[in-house]
């Protein structure tokens, strides 16, 4: 067997489009053409397609989820799909365009390195396209691929494609995304998805799959600002490791090496890294998103919720946060309300002091007069926390810049926030 799998990378992407743009068909096509579908799954889909009296095998059935949806014929949540090629393994966060879509897309986008945005070639850039793109930009997804689908229905014409590209570029200048690409496809017939289309000679870019396989994701992580939120303290209580005190966590930014001078926040104690430990022994360095255990030279008090950082570029420490908040729950936000706030491995209470504005995500304008937030709304708020939050702007670090709010009575996750 070849050892190719030892150099594969992981790419997480999310998909967005409005209903009937062909998202399910596209994902089904990617899975099918990359041979990630098992025969028993295909048999099921074939049988269902026949039962429904369809002429062709409906690839969109491959990505159908729970029974309620099958019965109602809709998708209502984020579903995760997997496929792999010899170069990369892909995790798709598939978010439906129906109700609750902002909430779903924000959820799917939060872990994605790339967003696929579908546009129906007949309809061009519509309000949904702008909303989806705005969310991708707000969540700081580093790469965007706009798939112009159903090219077969516009006779594979170049003009249809270039018109949509230029419309999109017009409004994309307001977005905060550096890498945007456009690909003309037909999900139904497979043009430019996995196989190159012979019907669009005018297009000399790569196919969708090739783009997904080759987009450079190595610089998506922050390798500059050293950030290590401590999850738990490891004390073996065995004879062999009698005095061992290790700080377990996942690197959220920068590089950590033995000998590095570090500061523990919020106490401000200084020390040096003694070792970077794993089950297989000490290693020379840790970088994002590795899970390791750090030991320090000095016996200082460190616990869950603390952050180990370096002196030269420290995070901010504050009890007043300015946050872009996406409301996820059916009960609306209460201004003046108190919620549990979770940020990296720390937790405290927070009050929503003030709403600055509500974002109108259809036209990217700010409504300074509307101070309410219900499900799927995005608002800018000021929060006051009961203890200092050690943070970075979300634009600089997606781990140390993100929070969630939890309702104190229902325990539900009611909001997702990006610290400005």
């Amino acid at each position, binding site marked *: *067997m070849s050892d190719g*799998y030892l150099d*594969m*990378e*992981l790419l997480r992407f999310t998909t967005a489009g409005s209903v009937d743009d062909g998202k399910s068909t596209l994902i089904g096509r990617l899975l099918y053409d990359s041979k990630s579908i*098992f*025969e*028993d*799954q295909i048999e099921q889909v074939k049988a269902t397609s026949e039962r429904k009296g369809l002429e062709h095998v409906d690839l969109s059935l491959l990505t159908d*989820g*729970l029974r*309620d949806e*099958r019965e109602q014929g809709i998708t*209502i*949540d*984020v*579903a*995760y799909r*997997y496929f*792999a090629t010899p170069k*990369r*393994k892909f995790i798709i966060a598939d978010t439906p365009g129906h109700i609750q879509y902002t*909430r779903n897309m*924000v*959820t799917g986008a*939060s*872990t994605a390195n790339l967003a696929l945005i579908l546009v129906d070639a007949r309809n061009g850039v519509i309000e949904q396209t702008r909303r989806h793109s705005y969310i991708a930009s707000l969540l700081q997804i580093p790469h965007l691929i706009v798939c112009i689908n159903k090219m077969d229905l516009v006779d594979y014409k170049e003009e249809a494609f270039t018109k949509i590209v230029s419309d999109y570029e017009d409004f994309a200048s307001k977005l905060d995304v550096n890498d945007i690409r456009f690909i003309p496809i037909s999900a139904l017939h497979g043009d430019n998805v996995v196989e190159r289309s012979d019907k669009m000679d005018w297009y000399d870019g790569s196919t969708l799959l090739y783009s997904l396989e080759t987009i450079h994701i*190595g610089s998506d*992580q922050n*390798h500059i600002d050293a950030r290590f939120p401590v*999850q*738990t303290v*490891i*004390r*073996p*209580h*065995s004879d*062999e*490791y009698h005095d061992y005190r290790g700080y*377990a966590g*996942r690197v959220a930014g920068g590089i950590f090496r033995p000998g590095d001078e570090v500061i523990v926040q919020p106490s401000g104690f200084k020390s040096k890294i003694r070792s970077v*430990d*794993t*089950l297989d022994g000490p290693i020379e360095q840790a*970088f994002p*998103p*590795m*899970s390791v*255990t750090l030991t320090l030279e000095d016996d200082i008090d460190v616990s869950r919720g603390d952050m180990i950082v370096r002196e030269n570029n420290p995070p901010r420490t504050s009890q007043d946060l300015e946050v872009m908040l996406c409301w*996820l729950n059916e009960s609306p936000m209460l201004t003046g309300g108190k919620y549990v706030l979770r940020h990296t*491995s720390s937790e405290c209470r927070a009050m929503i002091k003030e709403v600055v504005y509500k974002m109108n995500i259809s036209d990217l304008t700010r409504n300074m007069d509307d101070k309410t937030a219900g499900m799927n709304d995005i608002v800018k708020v000021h929060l006051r926390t009961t203890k200092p939050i050690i943070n970075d702007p979300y634009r600089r670090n*997606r*781990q140390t810049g*993100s929070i*969630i709010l*939890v309702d104190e009575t229902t*325990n*539900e*996750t009611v909001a*997702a926030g990006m610290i400005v």
Partner: protein
Amino acid sequence: MSSYHLTHLRELEAESIYVIREVYAQFDNPAILFSGGKDSIVVTHLARKAFAPARIPFPLVHIDTGHNFPETMQFRDDLMERIGAKLVVGSVQQSIDQGRVKEESGINASRNALQTTTLLDTIEKNKFDAAMGGARRDEEKARAKERFFSHRDDFGQWDPKNQRPELWNIFNGKKNMGEHFRVFPISNWTEMDVWQYILMENIEIPSLYIAHERDVIWRDGSWLPMSDYINLRPDEKVERKKVRFRTLGDITITGGVESDADSLEKIIEEVAASRNTERGMRADDKRSETSMEDRKKQGYF
């Protein structure tokens, strides 16, 4: 910069270790559900990584249907000894004896459905507030939307419409008295990832996964191992075949495939070329297209 990058297996590993540490930090009394199958073996391996050089700081729970492959039991006991972990056993036989559940009868009788009661009883008796399992989202349609932290009500039930959104890597394990969580640290792994990882890390697995000679009968499209618990149908006969198992569960319903794959490398080649999902081999999932979802709602793994 290019030296600061992880392979897909290392990135999945880091994510799973992170999740396991969150469970330990957020819950009072967590446990790993250990079935003896490769997925729970991988979760156990990751838990060792999460807390080294300390031992795994919580118990492993085995729901024993009484219908086990002898190899699984031996493997389980050896592993516990080697890693110094604490084992808690929930016995389906005991649930039957106590009248908590009734044994199915007939040709397709299995103790699979009965496990749910034993599991929930074991969770309640030991006051576990988080049970980690080796389920993966790629296994079955109903799992594609499962969260890492999956909330169960005080009846241990799963409500697909009432699951908390999960964003970034911030997990919300808050709950009321009596409720608990199921947590799936390897949610994002596929069957292939699991095999590649076992090979890369040189993790020991039960010999059942590797092709071996065995007495089997052909039933519902797979080779069912002959055992004391099987009732032969009139037209069925016992044959000796070289088989391996893709999942390990209750011996009465776990079908094997004919195979010459007698090493991990060969298994991976077979999995790569395989045209059927691993769950396709399990009789319990064939009962209806939504059977997994129904069992999940009742509190199955």
